[in-house]
């Protein structure tokens, strides 16, 4: 709880400390959007033990739902936001139901294929999506005629991140979370105690798709322009990397990973041609020395320094 308050306070005062610098604010917005998606992925990986290579597609479903409904049909942004959630949930159910009954990595392969299919659809359904050249003119969000820009949008994004974090923590510390942990601990015993493992895996997959869709809708309204390249396999892999780098053991790891991997490319930009090289080297170093993620690594170093003193 203290950490949540600290995050809220940090996000609250940050814009004012930096003179409401647009660049810093947009970095924090992207961090929040990525964090929203990785929270869901962390539930899926850390608690349901499944890997998704298709979350960029759910992010895209949210973004295009918002973009298409507001630009092509002139509907209110809230309609796009809600439609994206319902669509992502329905699609996640259809993809998850057959694959999550199987043990092993079928889920990873199925979501990989699903992501590619949606990527093609975003490109080819050009009468709706604008095709490869993208969809522009997506309106900025507004409340009562006042546009939600800059600091106000930042607060909206991080307000939602905190709500989703609280929701996720509640789920983990409940009957459902216990069932998921039991499946992780011993699927054999969980079944013998009456836990329907595939049912909970499908539910968590749907939940994670909904988080990604929310992120996508906010993204579309923030940058006002979307094109398929933002929703490719590369982004799915980046999201997965965020969760792994931060640590799959807890939800905090997912948020930390999202923050680190959103900021890292910005700091490496000065290296120009060597940017990708340095990025790869840093990721490998982290995973070699902190296989359970940065959060765990920091804990270990902290424990070690306490013992030394």
């Amino acid at each position, binding site marked *: 709880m203290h950490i949540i308050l600290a995050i809220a306070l940090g996000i609250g005062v940050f814009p004012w400390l930096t003179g409401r610098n647009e660049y810093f604010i947009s970095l924090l917005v992207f961090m929040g959007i990525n964090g929203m998606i990785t929270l869901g992925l962390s539930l899926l990986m850390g608690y349901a033990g499944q890997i998704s290579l298709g979350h960029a597609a759910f992010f895209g479903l949210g973004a295009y739902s918002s973009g298409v409904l507001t630009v092509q049909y002139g509907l209110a942004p809230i309609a796009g936001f809600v439609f994206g959630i319902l669509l992502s949930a329905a699609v996640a159910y259809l993809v998850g139901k057959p694959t999550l009954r199987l043990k092993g990595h079928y889920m990873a392969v199925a979501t990989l294929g699903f992501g590619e299919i949606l990527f093609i659809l975003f490109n080819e359904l050009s009468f709706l999506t604008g095709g490869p050249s993208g969809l522009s003119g997506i309106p900025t969000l507004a409340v009562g005629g006042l546009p939600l820009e800059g600091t106000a949008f930042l607060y909206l994004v991080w307000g939602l991140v905190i709500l989703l974090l609280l929701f996720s923590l509640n789920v983990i510390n*409940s009957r459902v979370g216990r069932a998921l942990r039991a499946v992780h601990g011993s699927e054999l015993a*969980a079944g*013998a105690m009456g836990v329907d493992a595939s049912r909970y895996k499908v539910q968590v997959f749907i939940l994670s798709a909904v988080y990604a869709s929310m992120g996508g809708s906010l993204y579309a309204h923030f940058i006002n322009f979307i094109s398929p390249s933002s929703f490719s396999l590369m982004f799915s892999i980046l999201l997965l990397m965020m969760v792994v780098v931060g640590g799959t053991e807890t939800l905090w790891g997912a948020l930390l990973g999202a923050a680190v991997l959103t900021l890292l490319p910005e700091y490496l930009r000065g290296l120009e041609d060597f940017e990708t090289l340095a990025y790869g080297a840093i990721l490998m170093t982290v995973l070699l020395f902190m296989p359970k993620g940065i959060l765990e690594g920091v804990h270990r170093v902290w424990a070690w320094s306490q013992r030394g003193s």
Partner: protein
Amino acid sequence: MGSGVLQIQDLQKIFGGLRAIDGLTFNVCEGQIKSVIGPNGAGKTTLFNLITGVFPPTRGRFEFMGMVLNGRKPHEIARLGISRTFQNLELFGNMSVLENVMLGGHNHTSAGIFTAGFRLPGMRQEERQIREKAMEELHFMGLEGKAPLGATSLPLGEQKLLEIARALATRPKFLLLDEPAAGLNIRETETLSQTILAIRARGITVLLVEHDMSLVMGISDEVLVLNYGRKIAEGAPREIQRNPEVIAAYLGEENGHA
């Protein structure tokens, strides 16, 4: 013998070329403690895995209180009121002692992902009830002082008891115990036999797989002897101890080792 809670007819399970269970027919009557004995590899644990739906039989049919169990998944069978422990412990090592037992109450609660995520009013009450029930079962097994510890940090004997507490928290009508006395000392085994009798006194029918003959002969109403997946004898403990085929196949061998 027609009024069995559990009725098993002509059960067969073949793994590759091995007939683990071969044409087995037997009943377990309500309120009984029935034991299954036999040398290692006789098919005892296979029998438990078949009853609880871990894998399907090659042939044969099971009925529990008139309902056919064939084709049901483990979690569905658990919901009918059949619970079990495992020969090789299957505790949730990532959870506390209390949480392990609380999981046993899974089917008696209903909170879904939304009720849980939004902490809706019904949920807190449900959590409290499930916690109380779990504490009752820990108390019944004498483990109430261990509630907050990590499940796999307990000594082996207590882990065995914890598995029984978890199984009891499902409020079963029928309990399968897979070698509960393995690894226990004489005093612990004596306590265990009292516990199993107390479980029966709660109206729970017990099917027991066990190697400890004094435990089996001391508390069983009926004993079923398996050898190479086949039934070689079935009856009251006294009859079994005198059955020449059993002595040859099992007890004789055991005496030979001793």
